[in-house]
């Protein structure tokens, strides 16, 4: 899979922007505040069907405009690939792949895959469990459409169950109990499936994660990733039954895949609280690298790799180690300053060139 040209119209700060990606490494240089991350956000939208940094669709539309457009053209399995996205401030988004309208935006991931490394990734290690659940769930979603279907079902059932719990106002009537029984059953079926797939993915990531971390941190350390289910390894149905009193009192579902933790540790210490800033940064990069590798192996296609302003945060050794670890494929790097000498870009462009008359 290779992406060629990208066009953004009324997207974020850009009136128009066009960019031609080289088959190997393209570098985009621009001062801070010129919108490098906005460009990354536009490209990543084509694969994720959402902002990679969790911003609303409305935020994608340039101030004073009603609609934003993103267009990407490339090649996938020797065939032309064209992805077009129209984002509306009000109303539904339109997504076309090779001029065919997609029913579900989430299915964009089947057409195009992108891995983004960003300075913000530190939150994968330092931030709350939701950051890590999203990381794992997105990877699962890229691996199989059925994982996306399971995730959507879990979300929907949870919304129904939580609404019912709120409506109960702490009362345990026969009707609420019997309806809860049904939602517990539905949540446990889809929830157990989601948990099983997360656990399986985490197991698969163990080896690539250790390899990546040892290269970046120069040495052998015992990094580990462990799934900690809020249901404490009980089947979800039993766990839900055990906390029902609590759930009714609090008006929300207190166990389930939405409350689970993906614990990261270096040695025997939790990375979130005990690792140094440098170790945390290496670990965050290693997580992205390990998932990127796994996607390449299992999808048989190499996702476009985007390194958004990543090198400014890394010391020289880590920067070079990261470059050496990147699998062969198409890469886009953005930077405000110079890159490590080993980056060897095929094409170097400035943000000013991409938006102004300077763009060819």
């Amino acid at each position, binding site marked *: 899979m290779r992406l060629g040209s990208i066009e953004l119209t009324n997207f974020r700060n850009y009136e128009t922007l066009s960019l031609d990606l080289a088959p190997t490494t393209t570098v985009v240089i621009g001062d801070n505040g010129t919108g490098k991350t906005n460009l990354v956000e536009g490209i990543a939208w084509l694969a994720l069907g959402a902002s990679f940094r969790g911003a609303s669709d409305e935020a994608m539309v340039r101030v004073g405009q009603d609609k934003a457009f993103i267009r990407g053209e490339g090649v996938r399995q020797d065939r032309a690939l064209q992805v077009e996205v129209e984002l509306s401030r009000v109303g539904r988004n339109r997504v076309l792949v090779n001029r065919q309208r997609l029913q579900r935006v989430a299915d964009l991931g089947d057409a195009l895959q992108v891995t983004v490394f960003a300075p913000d990734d530190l939150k994968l290690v330092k931030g709350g469990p939701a950051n890590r659940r999203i990381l794992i769930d997105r990877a699962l979603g890229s691996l199989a459409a059925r994982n996306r279907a399971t995730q959507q079902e879990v979300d*929907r059932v949870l919304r129904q169950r939580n609404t019912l719990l709120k409506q109960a106002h702490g009362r345990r009537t026969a009707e609420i109990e019997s309806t809860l029984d049904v939602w517990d059953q539905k949540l446990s079926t889809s929830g157990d499936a989601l948990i099983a797939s997360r656990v399986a993915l985490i197991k698969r990531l163990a080896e690539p994660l250790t390899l990546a971390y040892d290269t970046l941190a120069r040495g052998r350390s015992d990094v580990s990733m462990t799934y900690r289910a809020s249901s404490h390894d009980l089947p979800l149905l039993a766990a839900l039954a055990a906390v029902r009193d609590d759930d009714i009192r609090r008006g929300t579902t207190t166990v389930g895949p939405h409350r689970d933790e993906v614990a990261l540790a270096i040695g025997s210490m939790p990375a979130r609280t005990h690792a140094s800033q440098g170790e945390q940064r290496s670990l965050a990069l290693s997580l992205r690298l390990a998932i990127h590798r796994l996607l390449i192996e299992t999808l048989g296609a190499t996702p476009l790799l985007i390194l958004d302003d990543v090198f400014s945060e890394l010391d020289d050794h880590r920067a070079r180690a990261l470059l050496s670890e990147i699998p062969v494929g198409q890469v886009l790097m953005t930077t405000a300053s110079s890159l490590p000498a080993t980056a060897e870009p095929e094409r170097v462009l400035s943000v000013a060139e991409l938006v102004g008359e300077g763009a060819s």
Partner: protein
Amino acid sequence: MYAPPLQTLIDELGRMPGIGPKSAQRIAFHLLKIPSTDARRLADAIVVVKDRVSSCARCFNVCEGDLCEFCEDGRRDGSSVCVVEDVRDVVAVERTGEFRGLYHVLGGAISPIEGIGPDQLRVSELLERIEAESISEVILAMNPNIEGEATAMYLARLISPLGVSVTKIASGLPVGLQIAAPRFAEPLILVLAKLVQRANPIGWPAWADKY
């Protein structure tokens, strides 16, 4: 602003489901153009529907009179009841020509988000019918979505202890479907997912399995 009677018509049409302001305007201008006999016929049809069509006292299907055509038809098998969410589902099941029993229209599916619980549906009426009409078989024909499945599960738990046979309609891919048709993408994923779930919990292809 149009003349008040016309504007009133546009506003009223605009309150219909699926009719936006533009469609409302188009229909209103069309009605202005047509002969008054045609307009009168439409108006009469609306009035007659409101006067004469009500819901069946037994199964809550739409009908003219007290009971619907199925409940009145002595040749139907009264011991077997097919439970559906909506009146339109009765027509869908009937079109298959496979079912010769009676119906029961619930009036929706359990969905707390929309404020619908068992009390908002005709569940107690169903239980009363099972008792009073000595029904021996209940077929649950809910929509195959999350809310429909939850409703079917709820009813099955309620009815099974009464010693009545309870079955759910099969969910899956219809015979003769085109797998490539986009609207089947979702059911296809679900059916295939059930087939491979246990063997392969994450979902990568077997050829990639080298660990």
